[in-house]
């Protein structure tokens, strides 16, 4: 078999072959004669504790001179590990190919928060960059001692420290420390997760000296995928493993009152696991587990979940008592300004519940050996998953090792967090390793949902046509009924169904922009969850949590104000936006799209097939995005086709432009899908959108012709997120384009053919 190069990402197969005991080639013994005091002080043969304040927790120079970068986040398929390797290689002055990134294993990495809020580079990369810079400083110090040359006279190329162009004296990183460990304390800020930061004394490089950062290096993990040599967490096999399936009630909130295990006696190895509302089965073979889950006779309690008819969902939000309210921004005297307004423009917008609907339903494998537990999970926050599994098993966290292996897609707190906890309870109950995968209806029907919301905006206009006041408020289900990680059993179905005391999270958000209206108020209000325990409509983070909701409303509204004032939508924004980077990104998108100033809607609205263009801009601090959507609308079918998107994107310093383009492109397409199609359906008993027919997403036949991306590189500004910012302006850009094409303002997502046709008639 031909070896496929997987240098920058430790082969997933290697992980599997080692049966969970990740073997990294550090610590291999090699002859080493410490020549001086620095080596004794800064280098050790025994690995220091895996704590955030140790340089060895992030960087190791292996015996062969390669570098391992231990990254406490994960790459969900966007090539993040390539960017991290670039940042590390740059600071260490080693070739890109010399760096391999080890990700998301609690046995080898510290908790940097997993995939979370587009902080992979912004926070995670910042830490790896600081650690790599410190490692280089230490290595040069060691070389100075060994070569007996002052450190400031030394340079590094390709992992070799030397005395300059003649290289009269030189020593390689491998010869200095290879196979041993740094024994260097960092200035850890005491935090774990995204805000973890532990710099050393070294200052990272000046961006003008970059050779590797900024280069369009390709992902090496695409080849193993296309040649079917890359495993997912669904592919983990452990000796003695049985297959598990969960059973969920037909009516939300119902719990089993009787379980007849004799109904599955004929299925080899079939066994039911029942604890209060928690009900699952295991069997030796996967198909048998599926059959057992289908055939198990269960008597369910009567339940009547307080779900409204779906058509009344937004009425429910409107009328529901406010649970929590927060005014985020208050400038000037908004109420007075509205009283003195010449005219007031106002509108209300609605967003549905949406599902992660990951490509495959979640999977987890749990192996309990005495008090030592190994978990293989696709959860994007494996350190927190470890904590949750430990808690639900009643063990201290250090007894659980969570190994992240890519799952079937991950866009936030999806069903992976629940699967890990369910698998742990099954494995504990049956005393065997368990591989649990949900079925499709469970993946789409029972994952935590992106919250439904309503948004109210109004603007006060004076006699001269100037916006003198702006108010924007959201009323919504909270962003996190269950937290964005599964470290606490109350945030998981397994915990909720086994009687753990509930603790619903709360909070929402307001628009992020720099409109400089003299009087401005933004606020949010939340309402209580419909069903407080084990609900298929519980909410949590879905990619760019609540950003799409809020900015669909805020950027649609800006368009409405521009249209009411008979102003070009771009010119209107440029009149009020105050931030220089915002202005630059707006101009870049308009210029690239060939935007011709005029008022929306277009003049001639006749015809069955009409076209339009729409603009939207957002911050997702500190990233800025502006975009132009060009759409075709078929009035007879209600079908909207987003023909072209033009995106201008400023996330500060660009680490890898090609990777960044792919990330933006994927985000835009996923957001088009959410805008045009996606809506969780439910009735008064349960969620009814449970597969790809009942929860449709964008089809390839509807893919845009092109997505043009303009990247604004600002090497001097620290890099910020890109995975989520391009998602949030998409719905508004499309809504504004539909308005431009048809003259009809659609204020409710999704813009499915039925909804659009109804709005146009």
């Amino acid at each position, binding site marked *: 078999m031909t070896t496929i190069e997987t240098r920058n990402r430790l082969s997933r197969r290697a992980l599997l072959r080692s049966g969970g005991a990740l073997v990294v080639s550090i610590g291999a013994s090699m002859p080493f004669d410490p020549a001086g005091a620095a080596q004794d002080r800064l280098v050790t043969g025994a690995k220091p504790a895996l704590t955030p304040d140790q340089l060895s927790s992030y960087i190791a120079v292996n015996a062969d001179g390669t570098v391992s970068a231990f990254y406490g986040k994960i790459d969900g398929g966007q090539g993040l590990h390539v960017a991290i390797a670039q940042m590390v290689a740059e600071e260490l002055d080693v070739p890109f190919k010399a760096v391999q990134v080890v990700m998301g294993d609690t046995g080898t990495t510290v908790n940097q928060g997993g995939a979370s809020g587009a902080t992979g580079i912004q926070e995670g990369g910042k830490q790896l960059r600081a650690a790599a810079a410190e490692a280089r400083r230490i290595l040069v110090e060691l070389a100075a001692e060994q070569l007996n040359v002052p450190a400031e006279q030394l340079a590094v190329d390709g992992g070799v420290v030397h005395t300059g162009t003649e290289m009269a004296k030189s020593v390689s990183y491998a010869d200095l420390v290879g196979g041993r460990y740094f024994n260097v304390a960092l200035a850890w800020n005491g935090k774990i997760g995204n805000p973890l930061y532990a710099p050393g004394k070294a200052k990272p490089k000046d961006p003008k000296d970059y050779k590797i950062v900024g280069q369009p290096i390709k992902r090496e993990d695409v080849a193993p995928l296309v040649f079917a040599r890359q495993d997912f967490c669904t592919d983990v096999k452990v000796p003695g493993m049985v297959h598990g399936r969960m059973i969920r009630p037909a009516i939300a909130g119902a719990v089993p009152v009787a379980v007849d295990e004799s109904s599955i006696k004929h299925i080899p190895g079939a066994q039911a696991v029942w604890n209060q509302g928690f009900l699952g089965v295991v069997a030796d073979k996967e198909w048998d587990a599926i059959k057992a889950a289908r055939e198990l006779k269960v008597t369910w309690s009567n339940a009547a979940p307080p779900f409204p008819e779906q058509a009344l969902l937004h009425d429910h939000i409107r009328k529901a008592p406010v649970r929590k309210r927060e005014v985020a921004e208050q400038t000037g005297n908004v109420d007075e300004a509205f009283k003195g307004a010449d005219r007031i423009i106002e509108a209300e917008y609605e967003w549905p519940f949406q599902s992660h609907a990951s490509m495959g339903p979640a999977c987890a494998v749990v192996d309990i050996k005495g008090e030592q537990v190994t978990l293989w999970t696709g959860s994007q926050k494996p350190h927190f998953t470890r904590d949750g599994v430990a808690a639900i098993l009643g063990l201290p966290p250090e007894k659980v090792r969570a190994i992240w292996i890519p799952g*079937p897609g991950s866009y936030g707190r999806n069903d992976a967090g629940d699967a890990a906890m369910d698998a742990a309870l099954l494995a504990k109950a049956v005393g065997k390793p368990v591989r649990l995968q949900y079925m499709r209806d469970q993946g789409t029907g029972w994952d935590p949902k992106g919250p439904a919301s309503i948004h109210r905006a109004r603007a006060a206009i004076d006699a001269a046509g100037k916006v003198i006041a702006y108010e924007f408020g959201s009323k919504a289900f909270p962003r996190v009924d269950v937290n964005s990680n599964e470290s606490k059993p109350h945030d998981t179905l397994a915990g909720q169904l086994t009687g753990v005391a509930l603790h619903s999270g709360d909070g929402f958000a307001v628009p992020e922009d720099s409109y400089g209206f003299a009087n401005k108020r933004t606020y949010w209000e939340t309402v209580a969850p419909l069903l407080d325990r084990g609900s298929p409509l519980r909410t949590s983070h879905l990619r760019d949590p609540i950003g799409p909701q809020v900015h669909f409303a805020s950027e649609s509204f800006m368009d409405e104000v521009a249209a009411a004032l008979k102003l070009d939508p771009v010119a209107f924004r440029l009149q009020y936006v105050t931030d220089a980077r915002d202005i630059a990104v707006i101009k870049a998108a308009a210029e690239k799209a060939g935007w011709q100033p005029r008022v929306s809607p277009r003049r001639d609205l006749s015809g069955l097939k009409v076209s339009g263009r729409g603009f939207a801009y957002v911050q997702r601090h500190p990233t800025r995005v502006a975009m132009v959507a060009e759409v075709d609308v078929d009035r007879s079918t209600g079908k909207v086709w987003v023909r072209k998107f033009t995106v201008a994107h400023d996330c500060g310093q660009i680490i890898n432009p090609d990777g960044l383009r792919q990330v933006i492109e994927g985000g835009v397409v996923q957001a088009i899908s959410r805008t045009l199609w996606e809506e969780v359906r439910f009735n008064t008993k349960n969620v009814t959108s449970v597969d790809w027919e009942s929860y449709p997403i964008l089809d390839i036949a509807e893919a845009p012709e092109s997505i043009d991306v303009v990247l604004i590189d600002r090497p001097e500004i620290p890099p910020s997120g890109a995975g989520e910012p391009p998602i949030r302006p998409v719905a508004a850009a499309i809504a504004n384009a539909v308005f431009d094409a048809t003259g009809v303002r659609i204020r409710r997502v999704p813009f499915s053919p039925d909804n659009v046709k109804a709005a146009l008639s």
Partner: protein
Amino acid sequence: MSEKFSLTVNGSTHSIAADPDTPLLYVLRDDLGLNNPRFGCGLAQCGACTVHLDGQPISSCVTPISAVGNGKITTLAGLGTPDNPHPLQTAYIEEQVPQCGYCINGWLMTAAAFLRDNKKPTEAQIKDALSGLKCRCGTHVAILRAVKRAATMMG
């Protein structure tokens, strides 16, 4: 009740004991250890489990092993190798298509059969052939770039 079946996959013949109603997907994954066809929906709605049966793409998640008969099965692992890649595999790498990659069997196996039978297809024909397959990461535009690139390579 378990029965014996003979299954030819990627040129190798295997003897399998399984319930006749067992979907081919679980036989390939669990009995033969071929991880690359994947469970996405179990409903023939997404494509993640796609393999070729006598050259035609099928959903292995809804195809009982008893329905395979003497047909020859090809999985993504049998489509090409790093030394002898299918043009689609080369194009996927060049275009850096996948994100999570869980959907990849559906697109590659469906497109491979389509491009074999349709030289120089139009974009509309490609879209039509691939319609119905799912990708959740939003790589659709990149998929189209890669399939068009492969079509050019296959002339």
